[in-house]
Structure formats: C-alpha cells, structure tokens
C-alpha cells in the first residue's frame, strides 16, 4: 500500500513537472538539494584528488606556488558547495560565489602544467585559453541576461539562456577533461 502511494505521488509529480518551465542548473541545485549534495560528493572528490595530484607532480611550479595553488583548489571545493546550496544561500551571494568559483578554477588551470612534456605545453595552453574565454563569455551572457526584466516569461529566450548556461559550465569542466586527456597521454593511456 505504501509502495502504491509512493508510486502515485511520483506519477503526479511527473505530470506536474511536465508542465514546468525550463530551469537553470542553480534552480535544480535548489529544488533537489538533498540529491545534489549526495550525488556531487563523488565527482567533486575525484576531481579534487586529480587536481591535487597534478599540482603536486607539476614539474614547473616552485614549492611555494604549489602550496598557493593547493589552497586555491581547496577554496574551489568550498565555493562550489556554496553554489550548490542555492536552497539557502541565494541572491547576490550566489552570484558572487559562482563568479569566485570560475575565477579560482581559471587561476588553477592557467598556472598548472602537470608533468606534461614541453612539446604539448603550448598546444594545451592555446586550447585552454580559448575554452576558458568561451566559458567566461557564455557565463557573462547568461549572467547579464538575468537583469533583463521578465526574461523568464520569454520561453524561447529563456530556453536558449539555459542551454548557454549549461555550455558555459560544461566548457569550464572540459578544462579538466583536457588535463585528463593530457595526463592519459603522459602515462601511456589514450
């Protein structure tokens, strides 16, 4: 009986959600915060471990620079969790910490080199620069559009903006994928 009630409740929510408007990543963080917090523990920890490892094994950075970047990487974990907690930390602080997460990650990506061979360094730097720029520009477009009055009621524009936001975040994440690919090449896995 209990199972049936849960099933009916799920069904009713599916029907309700079918009529809901397109939503941003932040709003899904807010609406499904329990799930977001549990789920994101995995990817955030794994990527954190990878960033720490790459920083420690960096062949170009000095010891002091490595320490500074490790602090940046740790701070990124905190700012990301603050962004995820959009159910309680809202308004201007959400935007401040989103921007801070972007800035900290860009600092990390533009200062570390890993143990990459020199011939790949230039190529990776060029790719990362373009991807970073694209990510920042798309996020700025999304952010500035939030100030347009009634933007959420313009269904078509709102959907385009949500896609822009997703691409901005995916591009930021793809900086790590570039690192993963480069690291795979370094250790003989491609």
């Amino acid at each position, binding site marked *: 009986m209990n199972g049936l009630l849960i099933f009916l409740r799920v069904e009713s*929510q599916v029907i309700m959600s*079918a009529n809901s408007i*397109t939503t941003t990543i932040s709003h899904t963080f807010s609406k499904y915060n329990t799930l977001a917090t549990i789920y994101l523990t*995995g990817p955030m920890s*794994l990527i954190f471990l990878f960033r720490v490892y790459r920083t420690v094994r960096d062949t170009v950075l000095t010891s002091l620079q490595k320490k500074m970047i490790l602090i940046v990487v740790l701070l990124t974990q905190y700012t990301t969790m603050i962004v995820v907690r959009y159910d309680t930390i809202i308004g201007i602080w959400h935007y401040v910490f989103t921007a801070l997460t972007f800035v900290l990650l860009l600092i990390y990506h533009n200062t570390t080199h890993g143990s990459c061979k020199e011939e790949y360094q230039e190529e990776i730097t060029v790719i990362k620069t373009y991807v970073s720029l694209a990510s920042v520009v798309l996020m700025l477009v999304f952010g500035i559009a939030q100030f347009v009055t009634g933007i959420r009621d313009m269904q078509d524009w709102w959907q385009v903006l949500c896609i822009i936001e997703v691409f901005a975040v995916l591009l930021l994440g793809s900086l790590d994928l570039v690192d993963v690919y480069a690291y795979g090449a370094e250790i003989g896995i491609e």
Partner: protein
Amino acid sequence: MQTHNEEILLQRSIYFGAVLGGALWVVWIGWMPFIKVCLLDSNFKTVFVYEWFTHISPC
C-alpha cells in the same frame, strides 16, 4: 620508497578516478536542466530518483 608497480597503480587510479569524476559531473550538468530542455517535458528520472532517495532508500 615507492616501487615502479605502485607508481603505475597510483597513476592509473588517479587517471581512471578523474575520468569517472568527469563523467559523473557531465551527467549531472546534462541530466537536470539540459535533458529537460532537449526533451522539453521529460523530467521523469529527476523526480523518480529524488523520490527514491528521500522515501525508499534509507538515506
């Protein structure tokens, strides 16, 4: 002192961990808003898994 085999094991663990972490992150970002945008009204998995987490699982 780390042996050569341990070093290779560490390197591969870090690599496959990062691949898994990246994949999980992309799934999340694509899953919630993007799939919903593409399929316009399909939010089934989101609601279903959320219900599973909050009502059926011991979490």
